[in-house]
């Protein structure tokens, strides 16, 4: 297959995916240009995290394809997939640190697995990455001794340990206090620019996200409902975007889960 070196490092093309007959994504198209920080936003359960797994090749799409650096992800062999994943780093929702390893060993893990560097060099790399997230002093701690924000930062150091071209963030702000949130925001932006990488941030924190990303995709009901730069979206008059950006309880996304008529349900059993 001919490889086209495009400006977009990740391209999602007409992608559909679902479990057991229920489609989660219905023909999604997205592009992620090199060097940018792009957010995928949407309500809970709209399949944002699943999109990251599709990019990482942990799931296979039903229809359509995901291309990473020109390679179709789901057509790779195991080795090809692993080679592709060398280009990616992923920050999981709660960090997913290895609980039986110390902070230092967690960050050293990908380096040890994929290189044969001597211990002194591994140490230099690990300390460099930990310093970048401000946790060099915590290298001896175990993951259970870290706060949520610190664990997230260690996981970030681990995700970028091998200088990936694509960094994916799965809900990086979930459960963080405002200070930690600000720290993580700055880290995402600065790491992206320092590494010359492309970042994909899956989140639903509108205000934090709009402050530092370059481009935003809104996903709802399995399709991309809106896209644009943060400024464009803030001024958007699309009802969904308006509701989401301003956090209104009811709107095109209803407050109620689809249900039978309330009045009729209440009267059930009383009807004569």
């Amino acid at each position: 297959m001919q490889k086209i070196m495009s400006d977009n490092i990740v391209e999602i093309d007409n992608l559909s995916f679902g479990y057991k007959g229920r489609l989660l994504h219905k023909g999604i198209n997205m592009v992620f240009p090199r060097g940018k920080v792009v957010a995928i936003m949407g309500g809970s359960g709209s399949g944002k995290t699943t999109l990251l797994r599709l990019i990482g090749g942990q799931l296979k799409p039903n229809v359509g394809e995901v291309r990473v650096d020109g390679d179709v992800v789901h057509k790779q062999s195991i080795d090809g997939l692993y080679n592709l994943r060398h280009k990616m780093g992923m920050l999981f929702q709660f960090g997913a640190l290895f609980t039986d390893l110390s902070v230092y060993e967690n960050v050293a893990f990908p380096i040890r697995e994929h290189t044969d560097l001597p211990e002194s060099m591994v140490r230099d790399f690990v300390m460099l990455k930990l310093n970048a997230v401000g946790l060099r002093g915590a290298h001896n701690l175990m993951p259970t001794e870290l706060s949520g924000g610190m664990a997230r930062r260690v996981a970030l150091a681990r995700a970028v340990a091998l200088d990936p071209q694509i960094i994916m963030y799965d809900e990086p702000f979930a459960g963080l206090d405002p200070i930690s949130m600000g720290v993580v925001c700055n880290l995402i932006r600065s790491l992206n620019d320092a590494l010359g990488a492309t970042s994909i941030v899956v989140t639903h924190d509108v205000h934090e996200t709009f402050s530092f990303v370059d481009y935003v995709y809104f996903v709802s009901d399995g399709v991309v409902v809106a896209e644009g730069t943060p400024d464009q979206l803030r001024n958007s008059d699309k009802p969904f975007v308006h509701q989401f950006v301003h956090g209104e309880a009811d709107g095109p996304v209803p407050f109620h889960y689809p249900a039978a008529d309330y009045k009729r349900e209440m009267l059930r059993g009383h009807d004569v």
Partner: protein
Amino acid sequence: MFKGLQCVFTGLGHRVIEGVWRIGAGARLFSYIGFYLFESFKRPRLIVREIFATGVLSLLIILVSAFFVGMVLGLQGYNTLQKYGSSEAIGVLVALSLVRELGPVVTALLFAGRAGTAITAEIGLMKATEQLSAMEMMAVSPVARVIAPRFWAGVISMPILAALFSMVGVLGGYFVAVPIIGVDSGAFWSQMQASVDFRDDIVNGVIKSVVFGVVCTMIALFEGYDAPPTAEGVSRATTRTVVNSSLAVLGLDFILTAFMIGA
């Protein structure tokens, strides 16, 4: 009535499909472990760590149980044998029952309870906290890095534990028979040595414990790997590890014994 019957058949069919699916998934995991055979022995450090977790930490329960089982065998054996005036044969009774059956079987049952549950819970939680996914995304196969070392550690630990169980059990029997009951020490050992055959009894016992090691570890690993990533899922998987391992060990013990005695 008809509806109830339909329900029964639906349930049965569901269980059968589920069972076949699980056997297939287990076989696939097993073949992956085989696939990473050389890879895991290239990094013995990982296996050593797991031998510590499965083998060394099970040592205490195995040794204490073995001593008590041996003492009980000594008492019960003496009680029966003295009626026939052959209480010196107590050594034979203790040694044969331990080496042939109780050593491998009781060790495997205790192993399933002590180490098997730990393996299942650990892997289930690693899965629930996305550690296995994270590993995959770092282009590291969880089967090679997490599953295979634990498998080999279990397979190596089990025969060692079973041999220790038999040895300590014999000492427990000796402790009851010789100092407490007063059987002649020489008769105890010599009768034992005359009747316990190296090939037919000891080697067969070791073969049994290796088979049990493979089965128990495999069940524990599979249940953990297959567990739904929730608290309830992990707890149910842990229970299943104990139940399935115990049933598998007892069933296999019968089959192996039949083959060994028949051969």
